[in-house]
């Protein structure tokens, strides 16, 4: 595909803000989504290990991680909506073509994810506390399907980076192939890299979990130490695996990526992985640490930045596609609406939700909200009421004009 065609494929409606705004949000929300995905995969794997283990610590951790996994799937899906939105906005030619070329897989993704989620719930309700339930296999199925869903996303993302091959995929030998049944491009090293990242991120999650449990007076210190040890192993050992996968990915990069492996962005990604490996040494507190998870989150964000730089290197460098040339029709209302909702309303509501669940989780018996937490809730509720009022105000204003 030549550059004129790629530009022609852009939406003729243009964008309501500068593309850089969407790019930043894309990277940020994709990183958040991936953190949830990593915790989801890691906790599901730990829950599965626990379900098949005889060791009491493993069984207990497996049960706790099942609770984590179930929430993490929700969050991964919910947060994933945002990068899915933003990628369509600025990379529409690439994302849409890639999806159409593998349409059956794009539709299959929905079914795969649905079955994965329900399989996890099946184990949760049927076999969480049981010791030999066959439901353990539904958890195994869930993990396999979650990985399959990840692979489909990987394929769609990879195909989007191959405009030079689209026509050969869509019309092999000059004849239209419209079934959408094909998987045309993937890189197992790249896929392994993003999956392996789940190990150090989950390790960091365990260190935070150990710190959280330290608040409880009746906790078994041996169990807590075991969790911390497992977390450190996952961070360091998993980090090395991630490093190897990264090297393999860079060694197998497509030609159009040029000298990306030697770029500053690639060094940034390497630095992020090293940070994951070294984090257990940086946060050595025997009672665990939230710092390790914050570090892991930062590392994933750096990886997200490097991934975006790679996309820019391929689409911009090899194909001449510049995001900054997208037509802009600035829409003041919707820009303000999102910013105020995101920062004001969303900020208060999520802060309140985290604060109250955190405090309630640490409290034995009934938790009564502190004035500070209560105030957060009041602000969130007030912001919601104001939001709804402005919605109807502007609605009637438009109708009255």
């Amino acid at each position: 595909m030549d550059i004129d065609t790629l530009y022609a494929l852009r939406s003729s409606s243009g964008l309501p803000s500068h593309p850089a705004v969407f790019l930043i949000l894309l990277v940020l929300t994709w990183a958040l989504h991936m953190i949830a995905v990593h915790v989801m995969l890691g906790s599901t794997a730990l829950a599965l290990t626990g379900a098949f283990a005889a060791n009491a610590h493993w069984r207990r951790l497996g049960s706790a991680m099942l609770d984590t996994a179930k929430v993490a799937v929700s969050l991964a899906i919910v947060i994933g909506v945002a990068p899915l939105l933003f990628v369509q906005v600025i990379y529409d030619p690439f994302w849409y073509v890639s999806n159409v070329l593998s349409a059956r897989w794009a539709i299959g993704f929905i079914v795969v994810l649905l079955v994965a989620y329900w399989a996890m719930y099946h184990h949760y309700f049927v076999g969480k506390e049981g010791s030999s339930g066959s439901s353990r296999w539904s958890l195994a199925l869930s993990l396999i399907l979650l990985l399959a869903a990840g692979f489909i996303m990987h394929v769609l993302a990879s195909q989007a980076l191959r405009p030079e091959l689209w026509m050969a995929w869509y019309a092999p030998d000059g004849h239209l192939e419209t079934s959408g049944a094909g998987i045309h491009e993937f890189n197992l090293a790249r896929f392994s890299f993003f999956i392996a990242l789940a190990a150090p991120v989950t390790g960091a999650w365990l260190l935070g979990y150990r710190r959280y449990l330290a608040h409880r007076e009746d906790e078994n210190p041996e169990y807590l130490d075991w969790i911390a040890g497992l977390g450190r192993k996952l961070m360091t050992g998993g980090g090395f695996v991630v490093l190897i996968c990264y090297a393999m990915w860079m060694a197998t990069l497509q030609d159009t990526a040029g000298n990306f492996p030697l770029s500053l962005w690639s060094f940034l990604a390497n630095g992020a992985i090293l940070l994951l490996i070294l984090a257990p040494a940086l946060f050595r507190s025997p009672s665990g640490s939230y710092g390790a998870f914050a570090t892991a989150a930062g590392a994933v964000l750096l990886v997200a930045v490097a991934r975006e730089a790679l996309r820019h290197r391929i689409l911009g460098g090899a194909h001449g596609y510049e995001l900054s040339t997208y037509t802009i029709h600035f829409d003041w209302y919707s820009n303000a609406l999102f910013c105020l909702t995101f920062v004001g309303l969303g900020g208060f509501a999520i802060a309140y939700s985290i604060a109250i669940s955190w405090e309630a989780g640490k409290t034995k018996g009934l938790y009564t909200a502190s004035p500070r937490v209560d105030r957060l809730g009041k602000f969130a509720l007030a912001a919601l009421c104001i939001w709804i009022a402005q919605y109807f105000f502007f609605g009637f204003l438009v109708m009255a004009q």
Partner: protein
Amino acid sequence: MDNSTEILGLYPTWYQPALGSGWVLGIVAVIHVLASHTSVGAALVSTWLATVAVRRNRPELLEYVRKYGVFLLVFSYVLGSITGPGIWFSATVASPRGLSALIHSYVWWWATEWVFFVIEVVGIYLLVYLAGKVDGRSYLKIAWIFGLASWATMLVIVGILSFMMWPGQERWFSEGGTLNGFFGPYTFAQILSRTCFMLMAAALAGGLIAAYIRDGAFRLEMTRKLAWVGLFGAVLGAVFFQWGLTTLPESAQLLMKTRLPGSFVPTMWAILAVIVAYFSTLLLRPSALKAPLAAGMMVALLIFGIWPEERARESMRKPFVAGQFVYSNQIVARDVPALGVKSELPVLESRGMLAVHPFIPEHLRRVDAGNELEAGHALAIVYCSNCHGLGTTGTRPFGEMFAGNRDAEDIERFIKGALVTGNMVNMPRIPLRDDEAHALALFIASLPLWHSITR
């Protein structure tokens, strides 16, 4: 960036012969509508019940809210949260430019909905897991934040869906502005009717939980409460739905009268009557509530209520798929001066689809004696396959059209007389050049031969 290049921004086509890509999208969408309507309605009902539970110190009611929340988590939220993006995926592959037109105008609204969606999902977890673990005032805040955030997701999506049908204000085409496209009479009619139908769906789903309450008196109380909610939702929803129909543009009214199957209106009234009868029965005889019956009613609502309603909505906006400027076959068919969008019909008329579509193989760029059949197939894929099966399967298949007539000249005459001129009210104008019309007619006439060759 000037998009007026020689090549039009048309995407490849996904052709699904068994169902048609539109039906795949429709199936995902209908499942999502059931799950999301139940979720939003249940969020409002839960907020109300939680308020009563806390204010009147009714722990058993709180326990009902918690169990209802667990059910919603497993059913509505799993189904809804996956089929929601699932609609994007299926719309991406079935109608990329239609989706793109919506996304690019309403990205910030969708991002705003996403904020509410995050709050909503976090809220349902808090509602379930903090029941009885936090003080009453805090639980009420959690419930109200959850309920209002959930309703706000509906407020946002209703405006986008209204724009998808037709921009709220005609001035949107000349002045732009998302507000002008978002708000119209249809938007408000939909807010009211959907809110009511959501409450109705929530009452049906709530019955599934109420059926398992062991305390007989409490079960009867909950059954009556839900029956009132359901009746209120069904009756008022029907009234607002009727009002919504009066806000439709003339073209939609015409399509409603001429193109919808004759069974549509009777089916809608019948399902409404059945639902009203169901809730009335529960009011008079609450002991009649049984889980299989409640589940059956949910399925009936899906098959006989939501499916035909969504199909009708699809039919009403024809031949457009988004904002009354993108055709169902992905062609931009109207100028939108505010956005600098130009109709592609003149270019297609003068140069032909085969010459300007980026995903047409080079040897098909011009129709000649050696490629007529294949060029006709390419044209059918691009122009027709979104709505028609290119054989005997799928939606409105070619194999069942033209009254069995396989005479290429007759078909070509029909194409030139009805389609090239845009004389079919429910179909896009197909601005074929003469050579293209001939190739398409030849392809349609030769369908059995084509399938035997390509099989």
